[in-house]
């Protein structure tokens, strides 16, 4: 199978250490476009879409595989294998991809030299009293319901009526793709895999140095979650970005770029 086609792998530049960017739920590799210019020329930068997201091959979607984060971790490893990457990779991951990256690092020790985790959360659900991920199960059910409503009411139904165009015409397709998750079925599966995952047990096993970029005011991953990660990831650094929201690489890309530069300049711990 052609992984580079399946995961829509993009390689920018052919010199320098490899930066591998992993997008979060609801997004695609395009979300990194304000970050990558900063490393053009100095780094080889690799971007991709998970199967079920962005422009990845829809035909490759396998319900069983992508119902848990394991399948997405395998995508990440597949992408590295397809490019012959075996070590020295710097993973720059957003949101759920942070958990996916940590899983991949356990499966392939030595693949990642270090990881930059933007807005990570090992578990979105509350497990009181020890852990508060920020959400209850019914909140996530509400999210799925909202997503359905938007897919049905907006992309599938309203678009053709508003445009006076039949279903599947170019107009409705355009409106459809403007919603980040292009496929309602795969988006639901990814949403469940993301929000019902619990990767807290993985944390103590991780041996890769991590930079945690915590948003100062994040509705999805509050600062307590960043602190929890910092405590449980041995040798990690925690840096709080002056950002409201969950997408620093979009709303404050310069802060993310600076943090990455700073991290790359640091010597690896012995």
């Amino acid at each position, binding site marked *: 199978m052609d992984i580079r086609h399946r995961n829509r792998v993009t390689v920018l530049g052919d010199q320098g250490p490899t930066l591998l960017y992993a997008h*979060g*739920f*609801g*997004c695609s590799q*395009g*979300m990194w476009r*304000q970050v990558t210019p900063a490393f053009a020329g100095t780094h080889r930068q690799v971007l991709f879409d998970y199967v079920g997201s962005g422009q990845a091959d829809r035909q490759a979607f396998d319900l069983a595989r992508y119902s848990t984060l394991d399948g997405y971790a395998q995508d990440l490893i597949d992408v590295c294998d397809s490019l012959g990457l075996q070590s020295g990779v710097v993973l720059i991951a957003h*949101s759920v991809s942070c958990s996916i990256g940590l899983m991949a690092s356990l499966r392939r020790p030595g693949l990642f030299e270090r990881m930059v985790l933007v807005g990570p959360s090992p578990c979105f659900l509350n497990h009181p009293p020890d852990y508060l991920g*920020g*959400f*209850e199960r019914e*909140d*996530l*059910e*509400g*999210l799925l*319901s*909202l*997503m359905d*409503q*938007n897919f049905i*009411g*907006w992309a599938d*139904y*309203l678009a053709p*009526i508003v445009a006076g165009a039949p279903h599947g015409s170019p107009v409705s397709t355009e409106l459809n793709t*403007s*919603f*980040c*998750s292009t496929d309602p079925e795969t988006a639901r599966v990814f949403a469940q895999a993301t*929000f019902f995952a619990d990767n807290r047990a993985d944390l103590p096993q991780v041996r890769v140095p991590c930079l945690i970029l915590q948003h100062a*005011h*994040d*509705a*999805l991953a509050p600062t307590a979650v960043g602190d929890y990660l910092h405590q449980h990831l041995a040798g990690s650094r925690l840096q709080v970005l002056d*950002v*409201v*929201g*969950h*997408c620093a690489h*979009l*709303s*404050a890309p310069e802060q993310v770029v600076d943090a990455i530069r700073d991290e790359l300049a640091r010597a690896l711990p012995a």
Partner: protein
Amino acid sequence: MPHAESPDWDAWPALLAQTDGMGRLLAANAELRALAAWPSPLPEGLNLDQLLPPASRILMQTHVWPMLHAQNQVRELHLILRPAGGAAVPVLLNAKRSAQADGSSTVQWLFLVTHERTRFESALLEARQRAQAEAQARAEREGFLQTLANALPSLVSYWDRDLRCRYANQAQQQAMRPGSADLLGMRMEDAVGPQRYAQKEARARAALAGQAQQFELQSVDAQGRRQHWQHDYVPDRRSDGSVQGFFVLGTDITALKESALALELAALVFERTPQGIAVTDENGSILSVNRAFTAITGYSAEEAVGRNPRLLNSGTHDSRFFADFWQQLQAKGQWSGEIWNRRKNGELFIALQTVNAVRDADHAAQRYVTVFTDVTERWRDNERMRHLALHDALTGLANRQMLETMLTQLLSQMQRADRRLAVLFLDLDGFKTVNDQLGHQVGDALLKAVARRLTALVRSCDCVARLGGDEFVIALDNPSSGDEVAQVGERIVAALAEPFVLGQREGVHIGVSVGVAQYGPGCQSVAELLRQADEAMYAAKAAGKGRVRFSAQA
């Protein structure tokens, strides 16, 4: 610093807000402030997230913000707003992001409350779903009809007013244009060829004139077999009465025709066969009879149907005969033999009869088919022949062969029981003189008269035989004693001594000599009995005629 509120915003009937690129609130119009219970001017540090319940917050972070950054706008996205302590408000979100000169960005937010709108949308949605369902049902119906028409072995087609084909199922296509051009759009004339067209055109015109047509045509298939077709032309009449075309249903009725012919033939055979036939149901009720049945029995079909074949019962056979009959019919499914029946006129007849138990065509009901021939004449002929073989043609008495058979039978009984058997050998005295003087005819008449007198003198179980000429033998079955035998002998001598009246002749006198042999230790075979009786008769003649002599061995 929040921007100054525009007075215009407050007049707008929608929820409006302005934030920076991270969702920090810069301004909110009166409706939004009222919904969120925010004071005016807005305090610092408010964020749109504060209006969003968790699910909407996730959607905002995972979808809305990425879209705003990618495309600078978001249109008509469903969200839920829920101010602290307030109820959930479903909204449609429209937002637009604009970059500022300093590199920062602002976002304009418009929330349309969707209570009313949702109702409108759901009505539209329902209408669309209904239309889709109807379209699908229609497609399924058409697909089903198509499948149905193609599954039919019959020819189905439709022809318009110009006699062009508008529809043809697979069988029709195959029949008319096997492996060649599509029938659709073809003129009937071109599709069927001139010869066929000549047969069909008038029918087609009549159908177009509104008259349904049904007719049969014959054809010969590729293997040279004759085929029979029934064609139905059904006018396609519109609501205004006009005929737009006609439907054609062509049905292969070859098998039907052939089986009808076969049935006709079978019926003809049944009716015309010279043997009587009766078919009964499992209860023995007659279902049908043929002409020969009526001719033989005298019962018409009307009289016989519904009756039991017992109406032919002659009363000749005992119950054991019929028990055997049924037992064999059940066991072998067939009985055959001779049976005495009675005609309607009371006359007995003997039938050579076969009864078969059969199942009808559906293997459902048990039927009995009785086939019989009236063999009464043949039987009579046989009886006559048998009689001739065993009897004296002149007198009707038993002949030598029958006598010996009877004696053999009687002798076989002697072994088993204490019985007697006596043989009387008779030779007429003076017969030759009568015969010579009065002629053969009188002689024959005399012999017949002697036979009558002898027969009258003995019991029916005794046998009177004529061996030829003027020799007679009488076998007495189990006489009570030698005396009784002697008495019979004496009565015979006396009876034949009486003068005979033969036609015109009166007072014809003859006599008889009688020799008697009886079963005993020295006389145990037919030959011995006859020989000893013969010897005794000669002894009687020698002793002076008109006497009875017993054999010495007796």
